[in-house]
Each structure stands twice: as structure tokens, then as C-alpha cells.
């Protein structure tokens, strides 16, 4: 059992009146377990490192313009491609914009799009996973095949196709990545539901004639929240990866936004000319954010799968 409160078991004395058979101790147990998990998390070096890195970029995303020493959008053609120094810490890009300011402010778009896309994917995927895991049979077979079809092509390719059809925008990015991630999340949730549905509290709910949506979302869902949370953070790492990649390909966040992937895309052709700074610094920013999110996910996974 990976997560959540232990299922409220049926006390034998409850007899016919099953609806009130929720033994109080389980609530305390749940609180204890959750406190224990938080204690574990705050003692995990990987989790703390993740919090520090991701926290730093969140601060940049919120207060970016206030922190940045220069205007990230101000072009200055006379000072284009100035190498890093005291005037421009990270140098300037091909339009003479300050790379340091653009890296700081560039945290914003990706930190809006990636979490929202992951949230959408998690909500859709969890619903899908609950349904496929609970009903099994024909519903499960059909949905599983559709999930397989989604998974037969790399996420970036499917997303590329959809973005080309929809036209690139932040909303399109969120929807496309969310929808593409949903089947992957559904697969994990489904596995968790498969073991849950055999437990007594589910048959009890069924016996007392609860409606199916109630059983799915009020009974089973709270007990699979652990895997859902872990899946959310793991997918968040992939979402950052995917948004950055799509932006790099020119199909994500659009110019003149100081997005990191976009900055790399706009300048990678200049590397062989020796202009490495407009590429290296945003690339390092992406790498640090992805690693930070993965450290968070790693810490959570360890705390929840104990």
C-alpha cells in the first residue's frame, strides 16, 4: 500500500446500517502517517535541494521584472552580442538585449504553462484511470487501446502535430500537453485503482448502493491520492521538458517573450561563430529547473512509497 488513509473497514457490529460504519481511529492514523511523511520529506536532502532550486525560479517568475537589472525587452542594436562582463553579466543577445535579465524574467512563462498543463493532464488522467481501473472489461479495453495509440509516438511529435493544427499559443500549449499527458497518468492511476477496487471498503460502498461516481471520486480517489501526487511531480518535470522543447522548436512560447527554449532556438546557429553566451545561460537555466523538479519528485516518491 503506497498511500492515503487506510480504508475504513467494516466493523462487524454495524450489521445492516453500513452507511455509518466509519471507524474513527483511521482518521488519526491518517494524520499520523501524513505527519510522518512530512517529517521524512524535510529530512530528505534531495527534496530540500529541489525546493531550493524550484523556489528560486518561482521567485524569479513572480518578481522577475523587479529583480532584473535591465529591461529584458529593450533592444539595443549598437550593443548586440556583447560578451559577458561587468556591464552585461551574461552578455547581450543578437538584438542587444540583456541575457541576464532575459534569463531571470524567462522563468515566468514556463512556470505558468508547465504546471497548468500538468494539472490538466493529472485531472483528466486521474478521471480516466479511475474509470478504466474500476470498470475493467470493455470500457477498459477500449480506453487502453486509445492510450496505447497515444503512447506509440513520442510526446513531442504528437504535441507538434496538434500545435501546428491549433496554432501556437499558451492556451494551446496547456491543452495539448495536458491531453497528451492524460493517458500516461491514467495508466499509473489505473494500476493503483486495480488493487484498491478489490478492498472491502469498495464492496461495502457498492453494497449500500452508492452511486458509481461517488464510489470513484469520494471513496477510491482519496486512497490513490499518493500515487496521483507523485505522478503529478514526475509529470511536471516532463512538462517543463516538453514546453522547453516545443519553444525551442518555435512551436511553444512565441517571440518576443524571453523564454529559455526560445532564446536557445534564436541563437544556436551563432554558436559556431563563438557567440556562446546567449545559448549557454538559458540552456543552463532549463537544465537547473528540470533537475530541481526531478529532485522534488524523487523526494516525494521516496516519502510516499515507503
Amino acid at each position: 500500500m503506497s498511500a492515503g488513509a487506510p480504508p475504513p473497514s467494516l466493523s462487524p457490529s454495524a450489521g445492516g446500517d453500513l452507511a455509518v460504519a466509519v471507524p474513527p481511529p483511521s482518521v488519526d492514523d491518517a494524520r499520523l502517517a501524513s505527519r510522518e511523511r512530512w517529517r521524512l520529506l524535510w529530512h530528505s536532502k534531495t527534496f530540500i535541494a529541489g525546493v531550493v532550486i524550484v523556489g528560486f525560479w518561482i521567485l524569479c517568475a513572480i518578481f522577475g521584472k523587479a529583480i532584473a537589472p535591465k529591461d529584458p525587452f529593450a533592444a539595443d542594436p549598437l550593443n548586440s552580442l556583447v560578451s559577458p562582463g561587468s556591464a552585461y553579466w551574461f552578455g547581450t543577445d543578437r538584438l542587444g538585449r540583456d541575457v541576464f535579465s532575459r534569463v531571470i524574467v524567462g522563468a515566468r512563462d514556463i512556470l505558468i504553462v508547465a504546471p497548468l498543463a500538468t494539472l490538466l493532464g493529472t485531472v483528466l488522467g486521474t478521471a480516466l484511470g479511475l474509470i478504466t481501473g474500476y470498470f475493467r472489461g470493455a470500457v477498459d479495453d477500449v480506453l487502453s487501446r486509445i492510450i496505447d495509440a497515444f503512447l506509440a509516438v513520442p510526446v513531442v511529435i504528437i504535441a507538434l502535430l496538434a500545435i501546428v493544427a491549433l496554432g501556437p499559443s499558451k492556451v494551446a500549449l496547456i491543452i495539448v500537453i495536458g491531453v497528451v499527458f492524460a493517458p500516461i497518468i491514467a495508466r499509473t492511476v489505473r494500476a493503483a485503482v486495480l488493487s484498491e477496487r478489490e478492498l472491502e471498503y469498495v464492496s461495502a460502498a457498492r453494497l449500500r448502493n452508492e452511486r458509481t461516481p461517488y464510489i470513484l471520486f469520494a471513496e477510491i480517489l482519496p486512497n490513490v491520492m499518493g500515487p496521483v501526487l507523485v505522478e503529478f511531480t514526475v509529470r511536471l518535470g516532463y512538462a517543463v521538458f516538453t514546453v522547453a522543447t516545443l519553444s525551442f522548436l518555435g512551436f511553444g512560447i512565441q517571440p518576443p517573450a524571453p523564454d529559455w527554449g526560445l532564446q536557445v532556438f534564436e541563437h544556436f546557429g551563432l554558436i559556431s561563430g563563438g557567440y556562446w553566451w546567449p545559448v549557454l545561460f538559458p540552456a543552463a537555466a532549463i537544465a537547473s529547473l528540470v533537475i530541481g523538479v526531478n529532485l522534488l519528485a524523487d523526494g516525494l516518491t521516496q516519502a510516499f512509497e515507503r
Partner: protein
Amino acid sequence: MPKFLAKRIGLGLITLWLLSVLVFFGASVLPGDVGRRVLGPFASQQAVDALNHKLGADQPLLQQYWDWISGFLRGDLGTSVNGQPVSDIIWPALGHSVKLAVLAFIIVVPLGILGGVVAALHEGKASDRLISVGGLSATAIPDFVWAVLAILVFSLWLNVLPSTAQWPDGSGFLTQIKYLLLPALCLVFVLFGYIARMARAGTIEALDADYTRTAVIKGLPQRTVMRRHVLRNSLLPTIAVVATQAGYLIGGLVVIELIFNYQGIGLALFRAAEQKDFPVLESAVLVVGVVFLLATLAADILYSVLNPRVRLGSEDA
């Protein structure tokens, strides 16, 4: 075995069919007609109608889908927006991508397995943490970040490898390898952690197994135990899983091929996306799906050949 195979192939075909439906209707049902999307908002209605007619986009959707998918089955992938046959674009590109992927796998599979086995033998120690955490972090970082770093280091600062994969015409085999080495290196970074993790898990499981303990207790030399009992059981499934990854890789080359300007299927996809060339885009995505499912099938067969429990076992294996 034949039953198992038939089931796998059948499921694969259903998956492919669903993928084709997803791809086709995903690209077609969305707002705006194809001609308008290709030519932009300022093109004359006449030009838009003409292009729609040329592409068959003025037919009913189901008719279009049937034309596309029946053509695909006959090996006719249709015509691109520029009037070039799609097959002329996709097949040579696929060949290029396979070349790059094969080189990357020749490098990364032995490295990854070695890394995984070393990590398993030192489970919990510093070298294990380094290989496992380092490998997974490397996998998590987007490939274009690795590509620009690789170009910076090997091409700009050390000046030992070319920053493009496009070798001069008429280059010999070794020159081609030299041009492919840098993009392959990026794939090595991306794949190493994944393969090492598989090999590590398999090796740890095999080291823990009863047959290994028996072999040790009956006094076999450690080398023999490793070779005959541990590695044989841990690596063959790893290799089968790697085969699945190979299929995935072919379609995942968009970024690397763009940065190194390599004329593979990824770059073909990217160019088609830029030009909103839906005929190329749709067929290329489906081809990528076919390659992936073939690789998965190969992996399944390999796995079942190597693992008698699957070969002879129950239906749900």
C-alpha cells in the same frame, strides 16, 4: 508462441489504426480548412479552393481519411503541399535517422549496461549514487541542452568534431561516422540513465535470487557466477526493453536533427510543421508509429524467446 505472436500483432494493428484516426481527425477537425491554414489569411479564396482541391481537402472527411489510409497501406503516402510525393521525403529521411540511431545504440547499450552492473555491484555506495542519480538527471535534461553543450565543448572549444551532421557529398564511411559522432553523443547522454537503470534493477534482482546464492554456496568462482547466473538473467530482458526504446528514439530525433542539420525523419517532421504541410506531417507521424510498434513487437518476441516463463506461460503474460 504463435498464439502469443498473433495476439501481439493484432493489438499492434488496432493501436496503429487508432493512431491513424487520432492523427487524421486531430489534424482535420480543428478550425479552419487546410488550404487556408497553409496559405495564410491573405491568400485569395480562389487559391485556397484550388489547393484544397489539389489536396483532396474539398472531399468529405471520411472520404479523405479512406483515401489517405488506403493509399498508406498500398505504400502511396500522397503528395506534399509543394507537389512532391511524400514517400520521396519520408523514406530517405527514415534511412538517415536509422543510421544515427544505430550508431547511438552501438555506443550507449554497452556503456549503459556496464554502468548499471557496476552500480548494482556497489548498491548504495557513492559510485551507485553517481551512476543512478547522474544518469537520471542526464535523461531529464532536454536533448537540445545537451546538443548545444556538446557543440560548445567539442566543436567550439576543443575543435575536434564538426558542429553539423551534414557530411560533404561522397564522404567515406569513417568520415560519415565522424560527422555523426556529436549528435550520437547527445543521444548517449539522454539514453544512458535509462538503460543503466534497467540493467541495475535486473542485476540487483538476479544477485538476490536463490539460484545465485546456490551457485555461490556450491563454490563456483565469482566470475562464473556473474557470467552464467547473474548477467544472463539480468541483461537479456534489459536488451529486450532497449529494443522498445530504439523505436521511440527514431521519432524523437526532431531536436537533435534540427540542431545538427541532419536530413532525418525528425527534420522532415520539423520542416513539414513549419510549412504546415499536413500530408507530410500526418504520414510521418504514422510512419513513426509503425516503427515504434515494430520495435515493440521485436522486443516482445526477443523477450519471450529469452524468457521461458512468458513463452510457455499463461495468457495474460
